[in-house]
């Protein structure tokens, strides 16, 4: 735009660069497309050789994902009469009957509750802490900030050993509350670091003006700083949410039937006999799509989020 630039690449360079990047991009989404496609295959199409690129789409995977089924004897089937719904029809071709809903919905809901609960808490705590770190003279500020970050360096399995015992003593094993608290603590480092960066960028003059106008500190924080930091808070929230949404190690060790989230559950989806890949793919698709959408929405703040605010761009 700014006229001739010496480092502006030639059209030819651009073309080659573009072709290479597009090639890589296509290669890299192929597995994701394959997940989505497999969700719409029949179990037999899913394990066909050579892999089927063109196939007749079916909702079998999704039906299997949301129901539990059992094999029925011929006389049992006869007694039941013809299938009444489209999903019954799908299941009946395998001499099976639907015995009830599967666990997927409940696990998904757990992911939502734990994800949003921990995000809310960690962003709330993170915002006020970040404000204090940004605006006040907190003794040992740098040490505290580093301490907060260092909690993120511990391998989750190592942290899980004492947490397991602690939660057993407190009765927090396999509860949503326990997972919310844990994820809040893990996410705090991210939210404090990110939000401190965002709040640092808000000119202090605004608050000073408000204070002179007779606002108290709290009011200045609430009415001046928070609205200014809204974008930062929103993107921090999404990063926290994605972490909680994707987390596996703690979830697999500390939850069981009540508070289990989707990531440890999805790999354990199996068919009535043998692995049901379309159902796994269907479960994965529904679980991954929200994150894909968030990623696209967040693309401007992505870098900042993944580096804890170290790179701001």
């Amino acid at each position, binding site marked *: 735009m700014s006229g001739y630039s010496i480092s502006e690449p030639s059209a030819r360079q651009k073309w080659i660069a573009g072709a290479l990047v597009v090639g890589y991009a296509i290669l*890299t989404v192929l*597995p994701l497309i394959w997940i989505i496609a497999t969700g719409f295959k029949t179990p037999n199409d899913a394990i066909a050789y050579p892999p089927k690129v063109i196939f007749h789409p079916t909702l079998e995977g999704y039906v299997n994902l949301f129901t539990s089924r059992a094999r029925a004897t011929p006389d049992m089937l006869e007694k039941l009469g013809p299938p009444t719904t489209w999903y019954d029809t799908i299941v009946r071709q395998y001499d099976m009957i639907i015995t009830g809903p599967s666990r997927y919905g409940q696990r998904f809901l757990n992911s939502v509750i734990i994800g949003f609960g921990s995000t809310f808490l960690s962003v709330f705590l993170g915002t006020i802490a970040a404000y204090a770190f940004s605006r006040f003279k907190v003794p040992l500020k740098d040490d505290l900030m580093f*301490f907060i970050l260092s909690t993120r360096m511990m391998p989750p399995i190592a942290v899980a050993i004492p*947490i397991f015992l602690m939660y057993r003593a407190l009765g927090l094993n396999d509860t949503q509350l326990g997972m919310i608290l844990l994820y809040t603590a893990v996410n705090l480092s991210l939210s404090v670091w990110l939000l401190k960066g965002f709040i640092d960028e808000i000119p202090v003059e605004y608050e000073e003006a408000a204070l002179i106008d007779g606002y108290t500190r709290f009011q200045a924080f609430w009415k001046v700083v928070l609205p200014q930091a809204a974008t930062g808070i929103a993107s921090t929230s999404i990063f926290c949410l994605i972490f909680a949404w994707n987390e596996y190690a703690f979830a697999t060790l500390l939850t069981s039937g009540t508070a289990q989230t989707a990531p440890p559950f999805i790999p354990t989806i199996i068919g009535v006999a043998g692995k049901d890949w379309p159902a796994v793919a269907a479960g994965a698709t529904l679980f991954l799509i929200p994150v894909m959408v968030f990623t696209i929405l967040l693309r401007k703040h992505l870098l900042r989020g993944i580096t804890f605010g170290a790179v701001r761009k």
Partner: protein
Amino acid sequence: MTFEPRHPVADPSQKQTFRHRLSGLSDRTIAWIFVAPSIALLLAINIFPLIWTIRLSLTNFRTNRPYAPVKWVGLQNYRDVLSDVGVWHSMLATAHFLFWTLFFQVLIGFTLAYLINKKFRGNDLWTTIIVLPMMLSPAVVGNFWTFLYQPQIGLFNYFIAFFTGIDPSSFSMIGDVSLAPWAIVIVDTWMWTPFVMLICLAGLRAIPESIYEAAECDRASRWRQFWTITIPMVLPFLMLAVLFRGIENFKMFDLVVQLTGGGPGDTTQLTSINLKREAFEKWHTGYASAYAVILFVTVFGLASIYVKALNKVKDR
């Protein structure tokens, strides 16, 4: 601590009382009120457990024997961990995994960033597409990769077979001792190259154009400019990316446990997987605690040394 009235400035008299009410709260107090809950939570869920882990590591306690007597064993667990062949094997597997994932991610990530920085049309869209895998759940995606890696029916094997002509059922990426370590490197590289790419891109974009212009005036070749300007300017960013990936991959658990479960044999049994077996399958809590402490000291020590080096490069 409430914010009534809604419009404090509108009524000066109320403003006075309000101020008066809060006058006891200095900024310093507010700072503490704001910081304390976070610190308290971290103390409860990170530091207290850490101290407890250290305590456990000096005992023979086992989580699955709540009624068995607990004995102090001093540093015996630490000696046992450090003299365990399996532990060293895991360390080696982790080192292999760390080195090669970092190598490929830096190489491919930087190249991609360099290409994207050529600002061809639509580069934003393609960048977003490339970034997608990074944000997804490693456990869910890793689980699906076992399907892609299946001999014969898996897309990956089919792909390789298509381009090389070898039989797609003749090799098993996660079943073969010599291939499995690469199978996990490939998936991790697929997932995390975009991370390095994004950071490099930020570095490239931060280089002021004037430096190149100056170099051009000095008639420095493009090649020379690349080595004397581009690389040194991007280096701090690159090192930061390596720091983040290094820490993350040192902790690696979910992706690999889903992909190979540490197998075949213990070929891909990274330290986290090994630790999980000791702590939650064999329930050797004391031993596993010592192991955990050693891992934490290692990652913390390595990271601290690295950060020092990073700061030196940055200040240069």
